[in-house]
């Protein structure tokens, strides 16, 4: 009976984290993101936004608390339904691979994704150092839209784009997300951008300091 309450949400319950016995980065963070909802989050640099993003996508495990995906706890081995899009595309792509291999690595991507994100066919035969950061980031974004993705954490994904491209990318991104009913946590410094794209805005510092209020 309990499942329906938490169903179809990415829930963070009482998440606390610290790196190797240093000071607590944050304690008792609660957050829920519904399916198809875009939540924007802003906060000071160094406040632990990226760490929270990594915890949500299972790159780090929290010191305390648990993460439920549609009411379930996920194990490590399979395709993880929460995909993180990283801040620096140059590091998130194997520098020795052709970009077509990167597309192949994320199996079952839809052709429509490429045209929406403005990925050109001739880029596929190139290697990562022949493309710009913005062009690489499109591949990183496309890669996250695998058929089993249910939530996406987007950590400063458009900071290397110019304003026009930024608008184009977010337009495509929102279209894809709404089509597939994917829940998104968008992290950025740029509050006007977040206001534009998200359904709901969160200040990370408030999230950290008011542990008892569930968002």
């Amino acid at each position, binding site marked *: 009976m309990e499942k329906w309450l938490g169903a179809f949400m990415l829930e963070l319950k009482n998440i606390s984290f610290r790196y190797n016995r240093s000071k607590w980065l944050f304690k008792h963070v609660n957050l829920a993101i519904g399916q198809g909802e875009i939540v924007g989050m802003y906060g000071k640099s160094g406040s632990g936004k990226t760490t929270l993003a990594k915890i949500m996508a299972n*790159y780090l495990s929290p010191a305390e608390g648990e993460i439920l995906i549609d009411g379930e706890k996920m194990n490590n081995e399979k*395709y*993880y339904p929460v*995909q993180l899009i990283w801040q620096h595309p140059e590091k998130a*792509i*194997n520098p020795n691979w052709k970009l077509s*291999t990167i597309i192949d*690595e*994320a199996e079952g991507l839809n052709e429509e994704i490429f045209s929406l994100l403005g990925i050109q066919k001739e880029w596929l035969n190139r290697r990562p150092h022949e493309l710009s950061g913005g062009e690489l980031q499109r591949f990183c974004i496309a*890669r996250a839209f695998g058929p089993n993705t249910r939530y996406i954490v987007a950590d400063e994904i458009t900071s290397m784009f110019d304003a026009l491209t930024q608008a184009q990318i977010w337009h495509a991104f929102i279209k894809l997300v709404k089509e597939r009913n994917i829940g998104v946590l968008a992290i950025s410094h740029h509050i006007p951008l977040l206001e534009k794209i998200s359904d709901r805005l969160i200040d990370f510092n408030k999230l950290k300091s008011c542990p008892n209020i569930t968002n």
Partner: protein
Amino acid sequence: MKYHSISFGTRMAISRKGLLLKLLGLLSLFLIFVIGGSFIGEEQIEANMSQKNLGPSIRHLFGTDWLGRDMFFRTLSGLHLSFRVGLFSAAISTLIALILSLLSSYNKYFDAMVTILIDLLLSIPHLVTLILIAFVLGGGVKGVVVGIALTHWPSLTRVLRAELMQMKTAEYVQISKKLGKSRIWMVRNHFLPQILPQLLVGFILLFPHAILHESAITFLGFGLSPEQPAIGIILAESMKYLTAGMWWLVLFPGLSLILMVAMFEAMGNNFRKMFNPQ
């Protein structure tokens, strides 16, 4: 205002071409060694009492020894044997290094084990372990190959392990994991292609080591048996005749051994430059 064009690209291309030519030259030189060595039969190095103790001449380039055997052909077949021993032991050593470094990237317990093994083997001089292993296995080609293979992997393993450690924390590898890729898939597609250059260079640079050590323990009498035409054997036997003034028995085989080792060193270094142009 004048603009200067920067032409890093072409200059690098030229030096790469030069390196490639050098490599090809070395490769062909050493193919002559190998192919030449395999054509030498028993009749060319058999004893001929009418022609013993001759100095270097046109008929016998490296002279003949106290049994009238032609030293040129003995040296060539010795190098051929050294090459084969070097090939096998370097290949096995590289394989051990690859397996152990992959194992150490698996988790930290394996890593601790591998690190201890590396430190253990590096703390003893190669030659001591080598003599021990070859002696236990009763000498011969098998003893030498196994001995060299088991003693020469640690330094390469260390290099590969460091490379893998660095790769393991790379973002793209972590992403691959979250995309549901298995460990074997990641090893095949991410790790192996990345460490392949190091593996190849390591393999080629192991060669001269292996050959020198083979000659060394054969010279000391723990390696190949005396009837085999190895450089170490030739040198050890020739020692007795050196005082009689037969310098060619030592000089030419020794020089060709050094030449072969230097060639492999140069080849390995050129390969490294080609993969890692800095």
